[in-house]
């Protein structure tokens, strides 16, 4: 089954590497967004199977984007995985309370990113 993943990250390189990884290794369809605002628009329109969301972004950061996604009836059902370079204990608890499905860490291994997402979401390994 081909999964559709929305990647929301303001960093071009991270979007590109994650997108290449998920497309090439797992064969998933990838949708990219470079801001929280664009990510919400794309999630609403494209209805991806999951969202990979950066935490630190200008204007609308990851947690704010997550709250808006969870507050909308059109996107609240989509699992969100946070992608972050640093998370401390209190943040992890806060994110869990906000409804995040999992937290993945930068730097990630492009060869295993799809597997990490599949495992976190309980998807079959082949996507």
């Amino acid at each position: 089954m081909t999964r559709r993943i929305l990647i929301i990250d303001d960093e071009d390189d991270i979007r590109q590497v994650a997108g290449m990884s998920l497309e090439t290794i797992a064969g998933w369809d990838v949708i990219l967004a470079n801001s929280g605002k664009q990510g919400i628009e794309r999630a609403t329109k494209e209805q991806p199977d999951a969202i990979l969301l950066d935490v630190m972004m200008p204007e609308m950061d990851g947690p704010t984007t997550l709250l808006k996604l969870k507050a909308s009836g059109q996107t609240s059902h989509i699992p969100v995985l946070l992608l972050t370079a640093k998370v401390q204990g209190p943040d992890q608890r806060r994110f869990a309370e906000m409804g995040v499905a999992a937290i993945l860490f930068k730097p990630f291994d492009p060869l295993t990113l799809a597997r990490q997402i599949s495992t976190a979401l309980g998807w079959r390994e082949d996507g």
Partner: protein
Amino acid sequence: MVDPLNKRDETVRTATTLPPSLEAQTAEQKLQTMLSALWERSRHTVAERAALLQEAGKLWADDRLDEATRLRAVDSAHKLAGVLGTFGLPRGTELAREAEQVFGQPILPGKAAAERLLLLLAELTSLIDRGPFGPR
């Protein structure tokens, strides 16, 4: 990949637009080839961020670092920490994290710490020059 607002993304080769030379490769080999190409396109930006860190470090050592430059250094270090390991430079991530932690302090430690950081940043610049896929 679909990224209509980012022109640069439109040039990225995806799994469905691979040239014939990549068709015979495994998925892992294809990904390595694509990452290598992406690194070549990104290394200038990465090097600029490392240069900004070095400049901030020199200003700090000279006791001339202003708040705006310090905050830009924190942002650059954070971005480098996230991306370098993903490109296969885990030591680069370590060095960038240390720079992020140091520049993230509102009151920076003394000159000896600045000199030490400059050495780490020189190592970071050297790592980036060599790159994860060998020298240019």
